[in-house]
């Protein structure tokens, strides 16, 4: 079984049932309850979290550790329990990406990561210190380039 997504960005995409992610609380301020992840390839730097209810609603996400080596997500135990997250091992962590015309202006929201576990998704507030809402995505790369 599958769901047909009519995306304003990507046209018609067939989504297998097992790729549907239920966000019982939606995304903060955006709502929506069913999403899926779209990627150009397995190792794509960006994946799209695409709503299955709104053909125009999609957000680019990335794996935070691809850009922020020391990134940490801290969630209170009772919050993790509320969300039904038992172990970090089988929970995928993504952060939303604010895209821009130039790479220097790209940023990621480290404060509100998206956790996906067992077909369920939640956007949570990260309690870890040093988790800005708008962390420049390419500053580390730039520093390395300057150092090289």
């Amino acid at each position: 079984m599958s769901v047909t997504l009519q995306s304003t960005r990507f046209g018609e995409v067939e989504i297998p049932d097992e790729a549907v992610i239920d966000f019982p609380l939606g995304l903060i301020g955006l709502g929506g309850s069913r999403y899926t992840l779209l990627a150009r390839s397995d190792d794509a730097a960006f994946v799209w979290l695409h709503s299955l209810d709104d053909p125009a609603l999609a957000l680019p996400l990335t794996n935070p550790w691809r850009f922020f080596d020391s990134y940490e997500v801290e969630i209170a135990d009772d919050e993790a329990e509320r969300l039904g997250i038992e172990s970090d091992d089988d929970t995928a962590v993504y952060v939303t990406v604010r895209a821009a015309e130039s790479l220097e202006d790209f940023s990621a929201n480290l404060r509100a990561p998206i956790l996906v576990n067992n077909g369920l998704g939640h956007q949570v507030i990260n309690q870890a210190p040093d988790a800005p809402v708008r962390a420049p995505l390419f500053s580390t790369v730039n520093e390395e380039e300057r150092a090289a």
Partner: protein
Amino acid sequence: MLIITRRPGEKIMLGDDTVIEVIEVSGSSVRIGIDAPRSLPVYREEIWRSVKEENAAAAQADPQVLPNDLPVSK
């Protein structure tokens, strides 16, 4: 806006399941306890607002501006 005066230890009910309790008042700070059902997320307003804005900004992204091959540090 409904405005209610409460003392420390007193509570407010939002419906049958959500309890807001004034724990302590100290100078210009108020400690508040909230007991809400699982389906009702609780946020500090300024964090909720900034995340909402960031989500809305992220949702504006055009696939054309996302580079396919990126300089990745690892």
